[in-house]
C-alpha cells in the first residue's frame, strides 16, 4: 500500500494545494475543529470530527440561486454561478462520507439539483479511517465501518504513516497526482492499529444500538406512539441538531433586496422551527411535538421507505454532543423501541 510519513503531511498538503483548493479539518482556538482552506503550516486536527459537517462543501448554509434585475414591469433573470473549481476535502470521517450517499439520494434524484451536482463533480473526498472513536459514535448502527471509510480515496494512519487506498477512479486520479510523494509501505502495523480500533468500536457505549426496529414499514406504529410527548417536552425548538447534522438537507428559499437587484438565495432550514410549515391559512404542525416527531420520523421511517431502507442518519454523534438539552436520535430510538 502506498504511504507517506505523517511528518511529511505538510509537504503532501502543499502539493495538493498547488493543484487545487484543499480543505482540511484544523484546530480552532476554542479547541474545536473546523474545515479550513489549507494554508502552509496548517496542521490536521487531533479532534475526531468537526462541529460543522462536511456537507457544507456541497450544500452550503447559504448560496445564491438566481439574481433578478427589476425595471418597471420588466424582470431580467441572471444565473449568478461562476465556474466551480476543483477541490479536495481531506480527512473526512466515515460517517460524513456516508452522508454524501444520503444527500445524493435527495439532490441527485430527478430533477437533479445542479448547484449540488456541480460541487459533487468538482470535489474529491479523501477520507480518514478512525482510530479513536468517541463515546458518542454509533456509525456501526448504520452499517458504516469507521476503519474502512467510503469516499473517493481513503487514508489510514498507523501512527507513523498515512496509507492511501482508492475507492473509485476519481480517488485513483487523486492518488496518482500525489504519487511522487508516496512510497510502498508495509501494513503490518496498520493491521494492528485497525484491529485495535475494531475492538474499541465493539466496546463503544452505543455499540448495541440497532436499526432492526425501524424502517419504512413502521409508520403507523411510531407516528402514533405516546412517547413523542415526553421526548419533545423539553425541546427548545432550536436548529442545532439540524445544522450540525451531516444528513439534514431541508432548505428555505428567500429573496434579498440588495438595493440594486434582488438576490434569491437558499439557506438551511429546520423542521424544528415553528414557521417551517406555516402557510397563510394555517400550520399543519402546530406544536413542537409534531415538529420534533417529523425530524425523527423522517430519518427513521420516511427516508428509508423512499430509499431502499437507507436511514437518514450516519451515527456521527454531533447531535449527541451539541443539543442544548441533550435530546437526540439515540434517546428517541431507545424510547420508541420500549413497548
Amino acid at each position: 500500500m502506498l504511504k507517506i510519513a505523517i511528518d511529511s503531511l505538510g509537504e503532501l498538503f502543499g502539493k495538493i494545494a498547488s493543484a487545487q483548493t484543499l480543505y482540511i479539518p484544523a484546530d480552532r482556538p476554542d479547541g474545536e475543529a473546523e474545515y479550513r482552506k489549507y494554508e502552509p503550516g496548517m496542521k490536521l486536527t487531533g479532534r475526531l470530527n468537526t462541529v460543522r459537517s462536511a456537507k457544507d462543501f456541497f450544500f452550503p448554509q447559504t448560496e445564491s440561486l438566481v439574481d433578478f434585475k427589476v425595471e418597471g414591469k420588466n424582470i431580467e433573470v441572471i444565473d449568478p454561478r461562476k465556474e466551480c473549481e476543483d477541490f479536495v476535502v481531506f480527512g473526512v470521517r466515515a460517517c460524513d462520507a456516508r452522508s454524501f450517499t444520503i444527500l445524493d439520494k435527495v439532490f441527485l434524484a430527478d430533477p437533479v439539483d445542479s448547484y449540488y451536482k456541480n460541487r459533487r463533480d468538482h470535489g474529491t473526498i479523501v477520507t480518514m479511517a478512525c482510530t479513536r472513536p468517541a463515546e458518542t459514535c454509533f456509525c456501526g448502527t448504520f452499517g458504516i465501518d469507521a476503519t474502512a471509510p467510503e469516499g473517493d480515496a481513503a487514508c489510514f494512519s498507523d501512527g507513523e504513516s498515512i496509507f492511501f487506498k482508492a475507492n473509485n477512479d476519481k480517488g485513483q486520479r487523486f492518488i496518482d497526482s500525489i504519487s511522487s510523494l508516496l512510497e510502498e509501505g508495509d501494513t503490518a502495523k496498520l493491521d494492528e492499529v485497525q484491529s485495535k480500533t475494531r475492538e474499541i468500536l465493539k466496546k463503544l457505549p452505543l455499540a448495541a444500538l440497532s436499526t432492526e426496529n425501524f424502517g419504512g414499514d413502521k409508520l403507523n406504529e411510531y407516528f402514533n406512539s405516546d412517547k413523542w410527548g415526553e421526548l419533545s417536552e423539553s425541546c427548545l425548538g432550536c436548529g442545532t441538531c439540524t445544522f450540525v447534522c451531516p444528513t439534514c438537507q431541508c432548505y428555505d428559499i428567500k429573496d434579498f433586496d440588495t438595493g440594486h437587484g434582488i438576490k434569491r438565495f437558499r439557506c438551511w432550514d429546520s423542521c424544528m422551527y415553528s414557521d417551517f410549515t406555516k402557510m397563510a391559512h394555517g400550520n399543519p404542525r402546530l406544536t413542537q411535538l409534531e415538529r420534533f416527531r417529523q425530524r425523527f420520523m423522517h430519518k427513521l421511517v420516511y427516508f428509508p421507505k423512499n430509499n431502499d431502507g437507507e436511514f437518514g442518519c450516519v451515527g456521527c454523534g454531533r447531535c449527541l454532543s451539541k443539543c442544548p438539552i441533550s435530546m437526540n436520535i439515540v434517546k428517541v430510538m431507545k424510547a420508541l423501541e420500549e413497548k
Partner: protein
Amino acid sequence: MNSIETLIPKIGVVTDIRQDTPDVKTFRVVSPEGGKLFEHMPGQCAMLSVPGVGEGMFSITSSPTNKEFMEFSIKKCGCLTGWLHAMDVGQQITVRGPYGNHFPVETELKGRDLLFIAGGIGLAPLRSVINYVRDKRENYGSIQVIYGSRSKDDLVDYQEILDEWMNDPGVEVDLTIDNPQEGWDGHVGFVPNYVKELAPSTDKTVLVCGPPIMIKFTLAGLKELGFTDTQVYTTMELRMKCAVGKCGRCNIGNKYVCKDGPVFRFDELGELPDEY
C-alpha cells in the same frame, strides 16, 4: 420533465387580469414572445414569483387544451398574493413548472362518469380538468359539477360557468351558496349537504377540492351515499419552497405534496400520517 436548472424561473407576462370575486383574480400568463411557457396536465401547478416579494405554488387553472395561454385563479390571502392582486396588466412575473402529478385524465378517468365537487377557490384546480374533459368530450361519460361558495359573489368563474358550462348539453351544473341572498334563486346550503341531497350515482368517479373542512364533510357524505375511497380524488396544498421534493417542507410521511401530489386518491391519503 423539468430542465436541469429547475430552480431558475422563466419570465411570464401577465396579459389579462379578471376580477372573479371580491378576493379572487384570474391572471392570464404568456411568455414574453407570446404563447405558453410550457405544457402541463390538468391538476399540475407552477411556482409564480414576484422577485423581492416571494414565490408560491399555484394550480394552473386553464386547460392544457388551451394552446395560447395559461391562467391562474388566485385568492388574496398573504404577502405574495396581495402583491399579485395589486399589479397591472403588462407586469412580468417569474414562472417555473409544471410541477407535481395530475388528475389521471388519460388513464383512470377515461370513459368514466365524472362528478366534480368544489367549494370556493377549490374550483381553481378542477376548472383545468373540467375544461379538459369538455374539450375531449368523447373520451368521458357524463359530467356533473356541484359547486358552492359563501355567496353568489364568491363563485369563482361564475361567468364561464353560466355562459359555457351551463350551455354545454353534456354538462350538469348544480350551484349552491351558503346563505340566502337577494338575486339568487338557486340552491342554498353547504356543499356537503347539497351532495347528499342530489345523491349522485355511485358509479361516478369523484374529484373534490375545497377548504379542508368542506372536503372532510363531503367525503363523509359520499361514503354515506356508498362511494368508496378509491373513487375519490382530491388535491392537497402545503407550504412549498423548492417544488421538486427536496426542501422538505411539504413532506407528509414519505410523500412530498409538490412532487408526489398534489393529486391524491383518498385511499392513498389514508396511508399517510394525519398531518395536513
